[in-house]
């Protein structure tokens, strides 16, 4: 059983992303904003499996998260696809203090990119109503998310990267994607 879980750790942890998305622990919030959870999983996974798999899993993640959200006019897919592709091109270096900080920086940039893409979708949708200035205050959400995502990324990404590297379930997951 233990070996089975070890093999499938990437798939099991993937299934937990929507659960964490729903759970939304209040003690992990900054200015009422929680971290952008999918990035913590997507970064180590794409770093191990490469840009193409990263792109596909980014698309799947986006589809799942969009279906969990009630905002049907906006999508998280473009941001997550781009991040999957980008993360896949990053190389894994030796574990060091700088590597942990690198995870934080990468996740902060990715969070900023995804948040901005989402924000621009809102602006574009309401551009014609001449009320876009109403939404400018929500820029705060982007920066709060960047901060809290960057803060937690070194811990969570390093942990998941270690787990994924030791797991043997790569073939199963990639077969499932292909």
């Amino acid at each position, binding site marked *: 059983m233990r070996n089975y879980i070890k093999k499938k750790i990437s798939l099991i942890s993937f299934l937990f992303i929507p659960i964490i998305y729903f759970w939304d622990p209040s003690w992990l919030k900054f200015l009422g904003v929680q971290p952008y959870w999918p990035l913590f999983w997507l970064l180590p996974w794409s770093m191990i499996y490469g840009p193409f798999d990263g792109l596909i899993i980014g698309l799947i993640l986006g589809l799942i998260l969009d279906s969990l959200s009630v905002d*049907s006019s906006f999508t998280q897919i473009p941001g997550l696809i781009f991040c999957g592709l980008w993360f896949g091109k990053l190389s894994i270096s030796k574990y060091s203090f700088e590597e942990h900080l690198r995870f934080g920086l990468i996740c902060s940039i990715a969070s900023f990119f995804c*948040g901005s893409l989402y924000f621009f979708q809102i602006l574009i949708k309401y551009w014609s109503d001449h009320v876009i200035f109403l939404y400018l205050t929500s820029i*705060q959400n982007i920066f709060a998310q960047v901060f809290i995502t960057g803060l937690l990324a070194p811990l969570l990404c390093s942990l998941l990267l270690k787990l994924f590297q030791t797991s043997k379930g790569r073939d199963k997951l990639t077969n499932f994607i292909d």
Partner: protein
Amino acid sequence: MVDIRRISTNRWWHKKNNWGLFIFLLFLFFVRISKGSLYKDFYYLISKPFWPGQFQREVLTKSVEQEFLIRLKQVEKDNKRLREILSLQRLSDSESISANVISRKTGSFWRQIILNKGTKDGVEIGSFVVGPGGLLGRVDNASLLTSTVKLLTSPESKVGVWVERIQMHGLLVGSGNDYPKVIFYNKDIDIKVGDFVLSSPASTLLPPNIPIGIIQSVDEEFKSKKTANILLLGKPQAIDWVQILKVEI
């Protein structure tokens, strides 16, 4: 010489009784001038231990509450009858559904709560959700066991509202933060901080006169529009129990 001494000892101020009378008269004069305030204050002090107690206050409060409830029921009946005559939106007669908040996303751009009641319990899409304080949002999605509520703060939320004091309609728009905005399509309105915002009596989506919030600040007018920030009365980030109410169409 002897006569002079006798006269001086017989002056009125040399007699104790006269002084007593003088002080008493002075006291009466003071009572008259102050309209008995000294007496009233004294009575306040000595009667304090015998005032109507907490129990009596509770009994009276309960009676007043009951009176208000009866009046409210009567007003609701009248309101329902009149709205039927005018063929306007009204609340369903069936009981509301109490639900527990099992997930909440009240930060960032995604603003929704998930309730532990779904289609199995009779929840319908479009039902509105109220919590302590007032309106929270509308049911946007319902599964067998759960329902998802789009909060008023969501960027996609748009609700017609009514400002009671100035008798004006506005559009409540979620802006992706905790303070949604009301847009008034008239720049000359006299909107003030502290005005109550209710659901619009003319809304086709919501029942009328549900408390929503209070005007927190008024922005500068822009292109013949006036906007104001709203402090919501219902706090979705803190509420654990809500009521799902159906709207009869």
